[in-house]
């Protein structure tokens, strides 16, 4: 465990350093900088140059890199260029919202897809293909609908048509009721895809496990089907499922960008797109650092869950 943690910390540091460096230089390869993004349409070159100087954008790249790294080591992420607000504060207000969306999405997806996938697998195992095919097909079809399209469709139906949820309104953590109403449709949109993916994985994994010898052993001891499926099969199938849930979480952070845009949810997806559009390098760098950190952290968490489920996993 100690060795393992040590290894993970090393891995974390290496990945983060890599990400930081990559982002730093990749961003600067992109033409246009914060100054030109800020200056707007009708600005003279002289004014732009002044702005650039003000923002420290005309220093040599390596100097910029080192001063950035130095600040980073002191956990000083600085202020945004465009609005000059502290980045940490901005992320800290945006992050909980995105995390909330992602977590509820995953939770919903898990609650729906695992029973569904298990059922499909069980039916397939018993040779009753009809229900299995139905679930598999439905999963495939919803999985293939573009999120931005489903989002608008749901908005038209659930918000405009049925008046269930508002299409706009301030999203803050202080107002849980509004918050939940506003993130409801995004969550539905996102979970649709997640449910589809997870249900398919669950089906495959459970089906594979149902053919294992120990399932036969359990049956030979007179253990009822329900117990066989849920206690033995599902638990053993959990490993690939957990992996996919972990990865989905990472992908979700990406996937929220589109729904956050459509529904104007002030999460980190919105921050990221705004940051990129305004060439707000410090903001984008910090956000990506966060993404990377989350990615590695979730991987780590997945491993812990792995260990919890499967005692054979050794660190």
């Amino acid at each position, binding site marked *: 465990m100690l060795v393992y943690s040590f290894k993970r910390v090393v891995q974390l540091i290496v990945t983060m350093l890599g990400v930081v460096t990559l982002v730093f230089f990749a961003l600067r390869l992109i033409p246009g900088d914060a100054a030109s993004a800020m200056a707007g349409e009708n600005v003279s070159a002289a004014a732009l140059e002044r702005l650039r100087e003000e923002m420290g954008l005309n220093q040599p790249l390596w100097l910029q890199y080192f001063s950035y790294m130095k600040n980073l080591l002191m956990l000083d992420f600085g202020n945004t260029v465009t609005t000059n607000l502290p980045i940490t504060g901005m992320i800290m207000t945006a992050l909980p919202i995105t995390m909330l969306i992602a977590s509820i999405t995953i939770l919903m997806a898990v609650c729906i897809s695992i029973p569904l996938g298990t059922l499909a697998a069980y039916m397939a195992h018993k040779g009753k293909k009809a229900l299995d095919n139905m679930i598999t097909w439905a999963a495939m079809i919803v999985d293939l609908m573009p999120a931005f399209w489903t989002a608008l469709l749901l908005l038209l139906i659930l918000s405009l048509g049925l008046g269930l949820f508002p299409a706009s309104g301030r999203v803050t953590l202080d107002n849980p009721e509004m918050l939940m109403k506003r993130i409801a449709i995004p969550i539905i949109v996102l979970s649709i895809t997640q449910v589809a993916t997870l249900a398919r994985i669950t089906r495959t994994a459970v089906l594979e496990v149902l053919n294992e010898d120990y399932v036969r052993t359990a049956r030979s*001891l*007179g*253990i009822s089907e329900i117990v066989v499926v849920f206690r*033995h099969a599902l*638990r*053993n199938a959990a490993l690939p499922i957990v992996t996919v849930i972990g990865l989905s979480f990472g992908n979700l952070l990406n996937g929220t960008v589109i729904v956050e845009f459509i529904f104007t949810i002030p999460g980190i997806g919105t921050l990221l797109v705004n940051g990129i559009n305004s060439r707000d390098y410090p903001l984008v760098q910090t956000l990506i650092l966060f993404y990377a950190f989350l990615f590695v952290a979730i991987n780590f968490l997945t491993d812990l869950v792995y260990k919890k489920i499967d005692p054979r996993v050794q660190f």
Partner: protein
Amino acid sequence: METDYLLDSDPLLRVRDLHTHFETESATVRAVNGVSFDIQRGERLAIVGESGSGKSAMAMSLIQLIAYPGRIVSGSVQLENKELVGMPEKELNRLRGKEVGTVFQDPMSSLDPVMRISDQMITPIRMHLKLGPKEARLLAIDWLSRVGIPDAEKRIDAYPFEMSGGMRQRIMIAMALSCNAKLIVADEPTTALDVTIQAQIVQLLKELTETTGTAMMFITHDLGLVARFAQKVAVMYAGKIVEYGTVHELFAHPKHPYTQSLLMTIPKISGEKSGRLLHIGGFPHDMKNQIIGCSYKERCSAAASRCHMEAPPLQERGGTQASACWLEHGLQTEGLDKIVSLDKHNKPQTAAVSMNYTKTAAGEADGHVLVIKDLHKHFKRDSLLPWRKAPEIKAVNGINITLQRGETIGIVGESGCGKSTTARMLLGLDEPTSGSIEVSGNIQIVFQDPYSSFNPKMKIGDIIAEPLNVQGIGTKEERRFKVRELIAKVGLEASYLDRYPSQLSGGQRQRIGVARALALNPSVVVADEPTSALDVSVRAQIINLLCDLKEEMGLSFVFISHDLSTVRYISDKIAVMYLGEIVEYGPAERVFTNPMHPYTKALLAAVPVPDPVIESQRDIQLVSGELPSPANPPLGCAFHSRCPLVTEHCVSHKPVLEDYQTTRQVACHAVS
């Protein structure tokens, strides 16, 4: 179906005309084709038969556990006169585990890897015996101790992966017996285990059934085990029972041609080395096809026209014996000797082989082709933390072997004692930690599992040619010619060159494995358990082939195996390994007839002899205890933890391999 041979009117289990099919997309596999038999209370019935003959399918059908796409088509299975076929699942669950216990082949995969033993054991006990959690746990612990799990109270909360294979199989047995089952169905319960452990398990099962009065149905390929263990035997072929009788009847005078051939394919562990082994030619019946007439007719040298028209019923042959053959005595009409010549597929190899295997000159002076000196291999695990010491496994711990041209050395020993590691070092696949290996000429290998040793995407022709291609020997034409020669040498037709490995039978695959090993004109061939992955009936073919090559080409062999009878049959010298070291070394005959090291003795005792008469007279001294781990070998003699002759001296002092009676060497304080 005639059932006259079934006498008792009130058996424990009554199976009548059972048919089980697998309805796959492409065809219907008729796995069980009308099986009828009875098992009496407390009786031990062994089921033997070729791989794929429907043994497992039949066993699973008995407890209605046949899984999709399998289906019991017709027939009846009665347990104490209750019909099981068509019984609702709920009622069946009340019977499974309680009345009928099951032990499966692979103990590694048959226990749920993510659940504690306690969870897996206690649930059925509570359910079937209606006990409270505490009582159930106590009962489970009791059973674990009865099957010989040391420290059962603690071990019950372990996970399966924390147990050795033998312990897991014991746990399976404890689970099967824990609800006082009246019948145990065991499907190859020991095949995956070491010889000594295997013997322990069989002994245990035998004792338990004797004390509890539980009946048992036991599926195995090992005729030795049958001889040691069973009271009755049923021989299956192509989904049917072709012969049935008491174990003594069957071994003494088998009546069905298949049984007769089967008994002839096994080398005898005792007595003289007989000549070539018999083997059954032809292919097993494809269960997808409907059988017209006798299912064995294609492989039977005595098949007559009647055999092609009518299926012979299982008929009484005196005593309890019954056989499904139109001939009263099968192949044995003209006395046993005749069988050899009657087997129509067993012609001697006459193909003149014109290959030029000139004797290599190098190192020939003393006639040694292989000299191994003080060979060590220690595996180290990487440790990420620099201050941590890496654990070390001493897989091979100082062995010396010399091999003469044309000589075969057999290396025996239990699983994990370092046999394969030695082989890998000989081939240069692993670097020795220390010590030296000198080979004059070329060394090649025949692997245990021929199938996994072939790239499934390559054609046979390319597989045999690979060594030549890699080394760039000869022109393309020459190589093609050589490949044809090689395949002829191992007794296959050139048309096989265009096939893929999956399109060959096990025996054919291993022949290809041998052909590939010969491609570079080796002087030494290492055969690492070349037959243990093969069905009994094809094992003989390969052994014969190796013997032929040895004679013909003057090859030297390093033959590694658990299977002592085979080793004895093929080897000139024997090295017995234990925990990375050689404990006994000498001429094969001498070692087998007069083993000196206690471990050799135990090993020989563990190997069952396929003769019920000998088995019933043998005083079997099995070693007890588990194998120590090579990562943590005991101080002193490695065998002391299991040795019946252990003294205090053995615990603290390590015996060295010393000469014994000029030709032999033994490492034991008790011997010298």
